């Protein structure tokens, strides 16, 4: 079982490394953003697997947390890219 988790870990890590390449290479900002979002998601997987490996439940909170902040991050970045500001004072519809 442990070996299986290890292997999974390695695959996830490699995936992250791949995405890292996309983050560095770009070419456009949204590309990086998408890759980063992917990394966030994979981080969740990695930590979930780590919890099994370390045999501890204290990282589970971290999982949800990363999900949340990665969502907030994604939203704010997209808004930022789209509009140049992320919080508007007053919206004109």
């Amino acid at each position, binding site marked *: *079982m442990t070996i*299986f*988790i290890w292997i*999974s870990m390695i*695959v*996830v890590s*490699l*995936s*992250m490394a*791949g*995405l890292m*390449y*996309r983050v560095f290479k770009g070419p*456009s*900002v*949204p*590309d990086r*953003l*998408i*890759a980063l*979002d*992917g990394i966030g*998601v*994979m981080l*969740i*997987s990695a930590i*979930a*697997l780590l*919890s*099994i490996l370390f045999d501890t*439940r204290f990282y*589970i*909170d971290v*999982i*949800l947390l990363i*999900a*949340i902040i*990665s*969502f907030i991050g*994604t*939203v704010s*970045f*997209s*808004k*930022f*890219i*789209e*509009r*140049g500001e992320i919080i508007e004072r007053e919206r004109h519809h």
Partner: protein
Amino acid sequence: MSVIINILIVITITVGVVFTAVTTIGILRFPDVYTRAHAASKSATLGVMSILLGVFIHFWYNEGLFSIQLLLGIIFLFVTSPIGGHLMSRAAYMAGVKPTELTVGDDLKEVVEKARKESGSLKSEDQ
């Protein structure tokens, strides 16, 4: 019982890992931002949900912990991932990232251009 559970765990995690790997390949190999977003938001979400499911089962059966957080996490990801993907793609479009030449149609173009004319051109990034 535990064997079955373990097999279940292994399967879900394997599926997740595979999807994860696929995501990466997609993001690396697809030609433009929109297709990459497609890969990221769909398969990545599936992958991580699957892995989380496996971990959830693991904790439930092997550790005796019914983790609400994990469940919540799965739901959360399920809800938010598509939104994120949507927002990112739209942002890319609005920021003027060119789609690949393979793109067949662009329905949004007309609408956007019309709106742009009305509200003045979007301030471009300083970079």
